[in-house]
């Protein structure tokens, strides 16, 4: 009997639930402007979220997946990225997408059922939202391989949920990332639920971070409601990735405060008590407390920020609602690089039809 390998999983947290520093903060966190920036994106994400739900409730948006309570992960990870890195988001990373430059109008278009919403004007190489859970993890491996082959110091960041960590394709992608030392950061946003299936029914693994071990990657846990910790840990993983040091899996511990989507009713399967408990940990209030205490964030600043975010989202909503749908030929025009002659007749037939 010999021990042939040993592993450990580390958790990083800087702020307690009330926003008090637990010890020394990373350097960037002494900069008020940086923290306000992080805070602003979280508030924008939350504002967007509320608006999207309201639009859905009134029949002006499709099924929507709220990111309420998870803004710390989403904003923290995107803030650590460089523009030339590439984001591969799940369907709940609105905060990250916004920070990367996807406009609120584009997001509304996507969730409103219009493909133009994924034709981002700004992060031209970011991937569209991935609905089939975890199936974008292999794309991250491909994107990262492209960067590596071209010698570009860029990284791919793939974000998925706790449920996604049960998927074989996610494992396969992590495994090749290790084998080929690919510049990737895998972020498992552990919000404790996959629709009605709780984290502990998903896997017997004590942490999700340890799913890295079998792939030969480093795995770390971070308090996902502490945006400073997320920013720091993802930043370290990105630096490692960009400098040839392979991929990392980061489990970000957070909580889905909302229903799974607007089509879900979470009260069917979880207690209000549990939700109430997690409201005390949530990332926006936590950073606000910290800003207030440590950086004298004022009520006036708070109000101005909230107003600015609301106005931005309102404007995007108006633009979204004003946009007429694409013509039906769009179905054909983007199917292949050129419309094949074999499909010309179908396109004509589709155009000839008058909707009922």
């Amino acid at each position: 009997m010999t021990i042939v390998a040993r592993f450990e999983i580390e958790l990083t947290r800087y702020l307690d639930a009330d926003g008090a520093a637990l010890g020394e903060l990373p350097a960037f966190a002494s900069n008020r402007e940086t923290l306000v920036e992080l805070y602003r994106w979280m508030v924008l994400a939350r504002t967007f979220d509320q608006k999207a739900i309201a639009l859905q409730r009134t029949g002006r948006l499709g099924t929507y997946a709220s990111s309420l309570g998870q803004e710390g992960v989403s904003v923290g990870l995107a803030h650590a990225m460089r523009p030339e890195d590439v984001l591969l988001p799940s369907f709940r990373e609105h905060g990250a997408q916004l920070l990367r430059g996807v406009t609120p109008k584009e997001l509304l278009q996507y969730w409103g059922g219009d493909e133009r919403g994924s034709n981002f004007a700004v992060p031209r190489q970011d991937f569209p939202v991935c609905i089939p859970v975890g199936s974008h993890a292999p794309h991250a491996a491909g994107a990262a391989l492209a960067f590596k082959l071209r010698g570009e110091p860029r990284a791919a960041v793939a974000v998925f949920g706790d449920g996604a960590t049960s998927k074989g394709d996610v494992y396969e992608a992590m495994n090749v990332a290790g084998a080929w030392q690919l510049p990737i950061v895998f972020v498992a946003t552990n919000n404790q639920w996959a629709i009605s299936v709780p984290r502990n029914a998903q896997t017997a693994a004590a942490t999700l971070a340890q799913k890295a071990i079998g792939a030969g990657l480093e795995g770390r846990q971070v308090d996902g409601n502490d945006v400073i910790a997320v920013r720091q840990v993802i930043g370290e993983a990105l630096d490692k990735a960009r400098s040839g040091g392979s991929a990392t899996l980061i489990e970000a511990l957070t909580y889905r405060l909302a229903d799974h989507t607007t089509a879900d009713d979470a009260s069917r399967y979880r207690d209000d008590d549990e939700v109430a408990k997690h409201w005390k940990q949530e990332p926006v209030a936590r950073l606000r407390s910290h800003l207030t205490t440590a950086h004298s964030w004022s009520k006036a600043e708070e109000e101005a920020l909230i107003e600015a975010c609301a106005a931005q989202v309102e404007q995007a909503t108006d633009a979204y609602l004003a946009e007429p749908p694409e013509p039906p030929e769009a179905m054909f025009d983007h199917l292949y690089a050129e419309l094949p002659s074999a499909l010309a007749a179908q396109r004509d037939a589709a155009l000839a039809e008058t909707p009922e």
Partner: protein
Amino acid sequence: MTTSSESTQAAAQAVECTLVEGVNLALARALQDDPTVVILGEDVGIDGGVFRATQSLIGRFDESRVRDTPLSEALIGGLPIGLAAMGLRPVAEIQFMGFIYPVIDQLVNHASRMRTRTRGRLSCPLVIRAPYGGGVHAPEHHSESMEAMFTHIPGIRVVIPSSPAKAYGLLLAAIRDPDPVVFLEPKRIYRAVRETVVDDGRALALDHCFVTREGSDVTLIGWGAALSEVMDAAETLATDGVEAEVIDVATLKLLDFETIAASVEKTGRCVIVHEAPVSGGFGAEIAARLAGAGLVNLLAPIERVAGWDTIMPLPRLEDRYMPSAGRVVAAARRVMEYS
């Protein structure tokens, strides 16, 4: 047409129910009557399934028999094979057809051929259920109709109900069938109509097409949700004096071609309707059989009214993709006028 009930329990109860409730009734009946039945899938337990197909099962039956799986579709395809080979009757749910593709590997390479490759020593009496199809303005990847990928797999059956009573009777038949069945549920009509379902444990026959309207001028063939457009089209045609015979294929594999051929031989004209992209859709197989059958009375080309060969659009263009009753009527008129 019914096969004799294997049900031993509980007096027959007539319930007004929707298609998804018909599915739920059949699952409950199967769990009740057959201790080897096990339900599994994502969110099938306490949540009762995202469409409520498995609602309340976990309260009524031992929770070991109604199991939430991890989020692992390849597993949901493969695990039931082990269960079935060891004598159980798993009914696995894939939450939406858009996530069923990892199951294909297990269906082609294992479930469909366990009996063949072991010469009958082991077999796979399993059911894979999945809601499918468009028209409900669902998110991306939630609206496709890819039944034709399954109808090409030897050794399995593919069944699609078009009404609450058929959902009940065909699902019971699928669960009792000794071989693998892919059971696709048209979610657009999950709650579209209510109909009386007698919960008496009677299965409907598989491998059997239903004639849902008789007529002598043209045969309209469809399945699943598209059958409602087909029936609407038949009503419209009737106002013009064209009497359409309507066939609900119900079991796509194994196809009851006799019923179809007899109808088309009678009417001489045929329109096949499905939501899936036209190229390589299951309509092609029906048309090809008709084209090969040497019918003496074929009076017009066989038309297919189907989805375009495009990606299923997001909701704002969805209506321009779905085959409408209007398109069915137009096609029927074309074949009526053909000479």
